């Protein structure tokens, strides 16, 4: 069958037959792109030389079952040359519950590793030093304040100065849990408390742990809800700017805290639109940081981001075709100047990835990095009539959306009032309608289908949720018996006092985890200090 391709981009930007000099009138390479990569406004890339100097990091996502199992997996990967890891956390931990909480039933260790005690964090770092191996924890406040306290405590116990510790606490207050519904961030902890802990983390890290990344704005999860590239750019930047404003309002120096801010973004399948999005976002970020936030440190003008290929472009039908999709998305991310890339595995429409499918995702990146030669020059698409025109159009559209958000009082307000959720709901419904009607072709889904009998067999990752849950409950039972009850009670009381006094919570949480208080108990104590309950 033949498909006539749509003549506008996925986000609705009309695409012409050809582009020429008239489409970039007034184009000034020095002003619009920067003299080279690594110069304001960084359209071509945040660093000089880019991949000639250092190929993007091929991040490994690790995290399942117990901390011991995850640690063993990390050791295996380190032996095979890896040194950067995204640690995914299971859902109970992500919401601040211990593995033995009844609410955790069926979820322990499934989507990531369970971390309930300081000992769990120590186990995760077994054989490694937090000043030499970098873990990026996909975690949000309130939980990120506790994991930060655990990380700092691990460093102290190992005799490593806090200012030497490397790694990342994602710390995104809103988008980390699936990006969409407000309910995910208000169900188990009061929103104002979450924002306070976000700021506590920024303060503690930027003053005490300057090598640690304190904030990764998670545009990825937001994009996965189905919004388009323009919304993605605007909602992600708008959210980061709102967090920066909160940090500034607390009296923190933008030239210090903004140095350690970065982004986690999605790269979807509309090839040139995604490249233009990345370039436009870097340009908007540079101008905003310099001109709105008054940052004078050039480090604070550079927008750095890691990319994951879009999970929502994967299909269940003919899953092996997903390797091609991820490959195209990785190529767009590299041409868009990403600092680190992680690709979804082809089997994610069927279940969690297997080792074999994860390896295929890594190999796809390695082909692009080492065989294609696209790393040989910086921003190879720069100066293309089409790409520069599309970058300009993306910038205008994202800026218009940002102005709309400003009119609502900023992204936090837009989220609180349900505006974001409305935008998301409209976008994802429209997306499905486009797939249903065939306006958006999806190979194997609405075009070029094959019968189920011809589908290749696929290996499935085995989930041992019940086994993991039982083992972890047993472990926590022993943990609670083993700890010093008096010190534990004092530490719990200290959390409540610190909360009410409004001091930075990280030291109080360090004291707590060192005295046996669990993740779930830290969260419960903080809820009680706010006279708040969800149960």
């Amino acid at each position, binding site marked *: 069958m033949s498909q006539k391709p749509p003549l506008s981009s996925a986000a609705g930007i009309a695409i012409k037959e050809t582009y020429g000099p008239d489409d970039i009138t007034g184009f000034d390479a020095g002003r619009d792109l920067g003299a080279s990569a690594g110069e304001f406004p960084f359209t071509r890339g945040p660093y000089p030389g880019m991949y000639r100097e250092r190929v993007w990091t091929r991040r490994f996502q690790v995290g399942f079952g117990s901390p011991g199992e995850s640690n063993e997996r990390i050791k295996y990967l380190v032996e095979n040359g890896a040194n950067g890891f995204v640690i995914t956390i299971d859902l109970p931990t992500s919401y601040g519950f211990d593995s033995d909480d009844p609410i955790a039933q069926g979820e322990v260790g499934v989507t990531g590793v369970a971390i309930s005690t300081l000992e769990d964090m120590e186990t995760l770092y077994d054989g490694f030093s937090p000043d030499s191996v970098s873990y990026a924890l996909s975690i949000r406040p309130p939980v990120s304040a506790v994991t930060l306290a655990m990380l700092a405590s691990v460093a102290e116990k190992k005799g490593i100065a806090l200012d030497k510790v490397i790694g990342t606490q994602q710390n995104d207050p809103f988008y980390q849990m699936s990006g969409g519904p407000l*309910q995910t961030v*208000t169900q188990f902890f*009061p*929103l104002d408390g979450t924002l306070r802990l976000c700021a506590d983390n920024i303060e503690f890290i930027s003053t005490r742990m300057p090598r640690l990344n304190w904030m990764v704005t998670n545009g990825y999860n937001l994009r996965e809800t189905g919004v388009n590239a323009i919304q993605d750019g605007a909602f992600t930047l708008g959210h980061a700017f709102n967090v920066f404003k909160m940090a500034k309002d607390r009296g923190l120096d933008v030239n210090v805290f903004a140095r350690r801010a970065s982004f986690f973004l999605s790269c979807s399948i509309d090839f040139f639109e995604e490249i233009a999005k990345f370039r436009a976002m870097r340009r908007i970020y540079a101008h905003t940081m310099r001109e709105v936030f008054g940052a004078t440190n050039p480090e604070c003008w550079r927008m750095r981001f890691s990319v994951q290929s879009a999970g929502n472009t994967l299909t269940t039908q003919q899953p092996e075709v997903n390797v091609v999709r991820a490959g195209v998305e990785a190529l767009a991310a590299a041409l868009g100047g990403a600092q680190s890339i992680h690709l979804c595995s082809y089997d994610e429409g069927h279940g969690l990835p297997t080792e074999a499918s994860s390896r295929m995702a890594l190999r796809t990146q390695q082909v692009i990095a080492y065989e294609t030669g696209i790393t040989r020059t910086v921003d190879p698409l720069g100066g293309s009539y089409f790409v520069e025109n599309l970058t300009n159009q993306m910038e205008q559209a994202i800026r218009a959306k940002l102005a709309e958000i400003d009119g609502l009082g900023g992204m936090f307000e837009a989220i609180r*009032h*349900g505006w974001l959720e409305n935008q998301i709901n409209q976008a994802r419904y429209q997306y499905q309608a486009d797939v249903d009607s065939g306006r958006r072709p999806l190979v194997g889904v609405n075009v070029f289908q094959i019968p189920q009998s011809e589908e290749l067999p696929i290996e499935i990752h085995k989930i041992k949720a019940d086994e993991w849950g039982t083992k972890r409950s047993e472990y926590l039972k022993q943990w609670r018996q083993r700890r010093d009850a008096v010190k534990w009670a004092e530490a719990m009381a200290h959390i409540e006092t610190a909360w009410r006094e409004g001091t930075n919570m990280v030291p109080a949480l360090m004291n707590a985890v060192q005295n046996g208080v669990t993740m779930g108990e830290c969260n419960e104590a903080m809820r009680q200090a706010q006279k*708040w309950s*969800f149960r």
Partner: protein
Amino acid sequence: MNLVDDLTAGDRRALARAISAVEDGGPEAAAVLAELQSRVGKAAVIGFTGPPGAGKSTLISAYITHLRRAGRSVGVIAVDPSSPLTGGAVLGDRARMASHIDDDGVFIRSLAARGHLGGLSAAAPFVVDLMDAAGFDVVIIETVGTGQSEVEIAGLAGITVVVFAPGLGDHLQAIKAGIMEIATVLVVNKGDSPLAAATAAHLYAALHLNAGGHREVPIVTTTATTGDGVGDLAETIAGLLSVRPPSPADAPRRLRRMLAALAAENLKEKLLRGTNPEIDSICDEVRGGRLGLAEALRQLARIA
């Protein structure tokens, strides 16, 4: 045993089925309604209305917590619009009252407006009666809050709480639209907003600037998400109820008001649609000065 006996005896499943019966109409509905009449008039009926985004559901949830502490059982009717094109609906209010799901003293039912133009389901008065008969001390109705429904809810409920969120400007629209006349309590929700005080002041001014406006309407500021001020709201409502407690006369009054609203709406629709030759000719007669307005209204009422 019939449905009404069962639901009066506390069978929640029977209540749920009886509500569907009156919603869907038909012979079962008639049987249910006939059985119902002698068993109503004990519940206090409280309406909550206001613009979308004011936080009505969350506020109701917090108010229910107060009522439950006072030992009062609560039925909630949450009305959302139906799609005018397909008749379908997404009813999402009860998601914001989820904390009461384990409590047998609370029963929540979502109703789609099902094309009733006023934004309140045409079955709503009967559902109120059913919950009343089922023994709930308080029946709360939450309406769509898009304009017309506020006036109707005043007909159904003994007390009408109109809820606003600060800073959205909706209260200004409401003042213009005459909402103030039907409110027995005004609430400024999201009281933690810096604009809350200004909104309350606006409402106060609007109440007292109204011509002949000697109605004392309490204004309460609440923050439903934290529970702040919800105690004040509960006390205010309790005070009003002590002045005018529920009575067996309420149910027929509800029905009568509902019929009035429905009849008016029905006639209005026929008039505006302009496809009825009889109505066309009445209009022509009036325009030509051959028919007086009073007589025209009498004739129109017969057609409706």
